[in-house]
């Protein structure tokens, strides 16, 4: 499996350079605005896109066909993509922690929590998106991805326009939920792996 991961990392070399430029760009952009949550959200979002780019390359190269002629199992192909996803998520998490420290030391505790919440959101996003990409491929999957990302946002905007408000949720409850979020996201990710494996096992080339 290390061979498969190495292949993705080598494939993504160019992408990584762009990613680093993006991070620097956003750091400068957000430096004055004092919106750490937004910045870390952007960084994690890019990290989620990277393994999807890798899947896009594979689809274009028809790499899966080649890989399956080698001593590589279908499960390993699926797992390697999750590993690549987690590698980038965690690297990004470490970057956001570091930035949190730089931003405002007095807020460091809050910033850690924000980073954790954003990391969890990234993991849940991967967990939701990967099975779709394994099932429909990257081309079609992107359309689904847009729907998945925009329906909740649209629903929220719509709801707020109609005058719904979040009430009854105390700030302390929200923070308690955020503390549980990392554990929830790991569980969701585990379920996602199982779903992807069962999708990929039936795939024909």
């Amino acid at each position, binding site marked *: 499996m290390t061979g498969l991961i190495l292949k993705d990392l080598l*494939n993504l070399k160019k992408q990584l350079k762009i990613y680093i430029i993006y991070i620097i760009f956003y750091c400068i952009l957000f430096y004055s605005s004092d919106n750490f949550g937004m910045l870390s959200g952007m960084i994690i979002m890019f990290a989620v896109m990277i393994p999807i780019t890798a899947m896009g390359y594979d689809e274009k190269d*028809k790499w899966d066909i080649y890989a*399956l*002629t*080698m001593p590589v199992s279908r499960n390993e192909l699926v797992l390697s993509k999750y590993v690549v996803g987690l590698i980038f998520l965690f690297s990004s998490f470490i970057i956001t922690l570091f930035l949190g420290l730089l931003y405002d030391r007095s807020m460091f505790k809050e910033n850690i929590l924000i980073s954790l919440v954003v990391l969890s959101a990234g993991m849940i996003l991967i967990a939701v998106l990967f099975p779709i990409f394994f099932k429909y491929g990257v081309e079609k999957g992107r359309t689904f991805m847009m729907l998945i990302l925009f329906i909740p946002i649209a629903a929220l905007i719509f709801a707020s326009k109609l005058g719904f408000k979040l009430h009854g949720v105390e700030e302390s409850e929200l923070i308690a939920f955020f503390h549980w979020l990392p554990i929830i996201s790991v569980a969701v990710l585990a379920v996602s792996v199982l779903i992807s494996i069962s999708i990929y096992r*039936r795939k*024909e080339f």
Partner: protein
Amino acid sequence: MEYALKLENVTKEYKNFKLDHVNICLPRGTIMGFVGENGAGKSTTIKLIIDLIGRDGGKITILGKDNKSGLKDVKENIGVVMDESYLPESLNAVEINRIMKRIYRTWDEGCFYELLDKFSISRSKIIKEYSRGTKMKLSIAAALSHDPELLILDEATSGLDPIVREEILDIFMEFIQDESHSVFISSHIISDLEKVCDYITFIHKGKIIFSEAKDGLLDNYGILKCSEDEFKNIDPEIVKGMRKNKFGTEALILKNKIRGDYVVDKADIEDIMVFYIKERIQ
């Protein structure tokens, strides 16, 4: 006899195509050519062998192991070259080597670089910039560099110029010098197969028409040339296909069974295939 590859009653059904009870036996130490027109089922058969697609029925044994249960281990010992390279286009040969080293237990770096030099493949260029021939040669180099016992090639020589094809066929001949090595090669360039193969398997519309030793085929079949009246006297049992033109009748026949004084020319594999497909007597 020990078989490198054995397919028994392998069946796969699609909406408008059926691979129908395919039986193929490739003895160890031999090269088998797998021929048939486009869409006859060659690629489907090869994909079934590697389990890229699931079969509906039958049994496939590669190097003595079932291709469902023991596939991962078996794949250490087979080299597969598909009709295109399918290697990551943005990588170069050195990076491919680094990846393969981590995938094959038996990966032989020295052998790989030796083959690259032999094929004059650039190490630093990315694969996207290679010509089609070079891409195929790289695939073949990769397939040969982990000490395989069986090579499975799907149209690996199609779309290449005659010089490159010749080079590649030479490599297969060299590979087969080791008596434990075997090759299963599909192609519609029949002249290539005629040069190197011991066995020819002919598939037509998802069915195996024959799977025989090449020499036997060439000995058994002949092209009969005669007039229409003469043709009426020929036993229909021995006629495998015929066509009429303004000079008379041509027929593919079992030449050893013909009685009487007729003009019978040698039939090559291509003749046999064309007569079977187009001029088949129903």
